[in-house]
């Protein structure tokens, strides 16, 4: 099972900072997220980029990026400062 680690506001909305999800790829993981958490999941994911083990799926295979059992999927919204 891949581990989904959502950004803060999504985590607060769904009540956890880590959740294990059985999914073969990112698309399946998102589908499962929608099923489990409903509309709030979709709303929070609108502006969130998706990282698999710290790599943006944009530079992998997009939603078709395969997931292994120990993969970490994190979502991220823009930030700045420092």
């Amino acid at each position, binding site marked *: 099972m891949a581990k989904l680690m959502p*950004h803060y506001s999504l985590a607060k909305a769904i009540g956890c900072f880590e959740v294990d999800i059985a999914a073969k790829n990112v698309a399946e993981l998102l589908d499962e997220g929608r099923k489990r958490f409903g509309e709030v999941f979709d709303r929070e994911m609108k502006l969130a980029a998706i990282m698999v083990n710290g790599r943006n799926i*944009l530079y992998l295979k997009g939603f078709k990026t395969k997931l292994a059992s120990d993969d970490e999927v994190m979502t991220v919204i823009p*930030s700045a400062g420092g």
Partner: protein
Amino acid sequence: MAYGDMNGRLLDVDLSTGRIVRRQIPDEYLEKYVGGRGLGARLLYDNLPENVEPLSPDNLLFFMTGPLVGSGAPLSTRFVVVTKSPMTGGIADAACGGTFGVKLKQAGYDALLLRGKSEKPVYLEITDEAVAIKDASDLWGLGTYETQEKLPKAFGKAVIGPAGENLVLYSAILSGERVAGRSGVGAVMGSKNVKAIIANGKQKVELANPQGFKDYRKKYVEQFKAHPMQGDLMPKLGTANIVMAASATNILPTRNFSKGTDPKAYEISGEKLAEEDLIKNDGCMGCIIRCGRQVGLPSKNGEAVKGPEYETLALFGSNLGNFNLKNIYEANYLCDDLGLDTISAGNTIGFAMELTAKGMLKSELAFDKADNILDTINDIAHRRGLGDDLAQGVKRMSEKYGGKEFAMHVKGLELPGYDPRGAWGQGLEYAVGNRGGDHVQGATMFLEAIGPLKLNPVTAKNKHHLVVMQQNTAAGIGSLVMCIFTSYAILPPVVYRLNPNGFMFKLVNFLMLAAGPFLSAPPPPLVVLWYANFMTHIKGKKFTFKDFFLLGDRTFDMERLFNLREGLTKADDTLPERLLKEPISKGLPDGVPIEQMKPPYYKLRGWDTEGRPTAKKLKKLGIDVEAHPFDLDQGEVIVEAG
């Protein structure tokens, strides 16, 4: 005069003799180098003899303002400290908010130079009527906050704490709660026995086009307040907003940069800080962003104090395996009060933790153990026990104890809160940085990882263009003396509304990286014209973006020339071995291919293969290092020696 507002006065204080002279900076310098970083670098190059020991009386310590300081331009109530760094042996520059910059300007000075060394602790009082060196025996040994409380309220202040007095290499200078933290500027001030500088006056900055300036200011403030980053996220969460994004993108330093992410990152996030502990926002004088945090300090019965910035959360948090937010508040407050740079301090403690874990150092320090961090900070500032070694920073620690491959510094300056294995452009920026391991002289990771765009972070392709664009922009801002956070508004709000997994987003990212050659040669398509427009209204003649970008380029190369003269070479343009050879995550390459990235960067900069600016490049920039138009023999003596 080169500028309507800038009188070009430099106050030259010889602490060894007590002689104080008011000098006039030539118009040629004000035109070319403007102020802040650029002018400071040129003045240092001209007037500091080669190979001076940074903590000797011979070193020069400049406090620079700029043409926007005191003008009413938003986000410009700042000053920049420039000197030779005791950490790197190269250029040191550290910018700071607070009130000192504006007050120095109101006292009638654009720059202050401290030279020599006082026999006993002193502070310097500067007004538009007089300048005096005063006894500071009763301030010596005090923390920065108590020191400032004991000095006259109406004055702007720049002070050091016990760390600076004790020559801890990474000591800071504070003005109010804001910090000129990096490069060891506080140690240089301490080496001169100067505890504080205070300034006040009634001089006003004159604008060439006051109405145009006022109208433009209004437009600028409106744009900022409507921006999703500066108008919303930064005020809501402060710089701490980065923690979660850094962890997700694999750039959050974790346990001495052994990883770039941690599942407990949310425990030290800006969101959690805002939810549980934020008392109110804070900001520099007249700031329209107000990204500063005020939190309750447990050890002071919940009294409101400055909260930690992202860098402190990263270096004293995840980098030590410390996810106790309140402990980080205490560490942050303590470092500020003692006058320590939190980045170097946290990084150095993390290095000592790894040395200890590997059996190379005997100490009680350990990752995931926060209970002795505060004592360690005190030991560093007072140079007690192991603290005496830690006070030297990781480069010197690694020379004594070993572990150079995981000593996380560049050129002797500890790395800040971004692991470049998750953002290769940031790695190049660190490696070639003039002040060493630094993030505010470019912040390329904003475009690669944490910002609204995600320009393929693990490719070397065209990253040199991004880095040059970012460095020149930051150097231009540093020479006008404006807040670097203005640059985070460079990407327009529409970018923030793109679906980050959609086709349009992918296209924008692809095009921007592919457009590299256009980004690093003005006029770049995406950069707004704020800086140039403010300058135009101040000067009364057109200051274009090309002028701004050239100023940044000139500033950067002037600093580089100083470093080369002081013995730094292209071999110093590198990263710690860990970042070159160890993969940070499954599926990622081993490390940052820095040797592959350097040659195109040097070429783009107009440097030769050894990393030296060519004669052609210097001609383009109008830099003639043989010319010395600033004659330090000229000036009006205010106080005679003795």
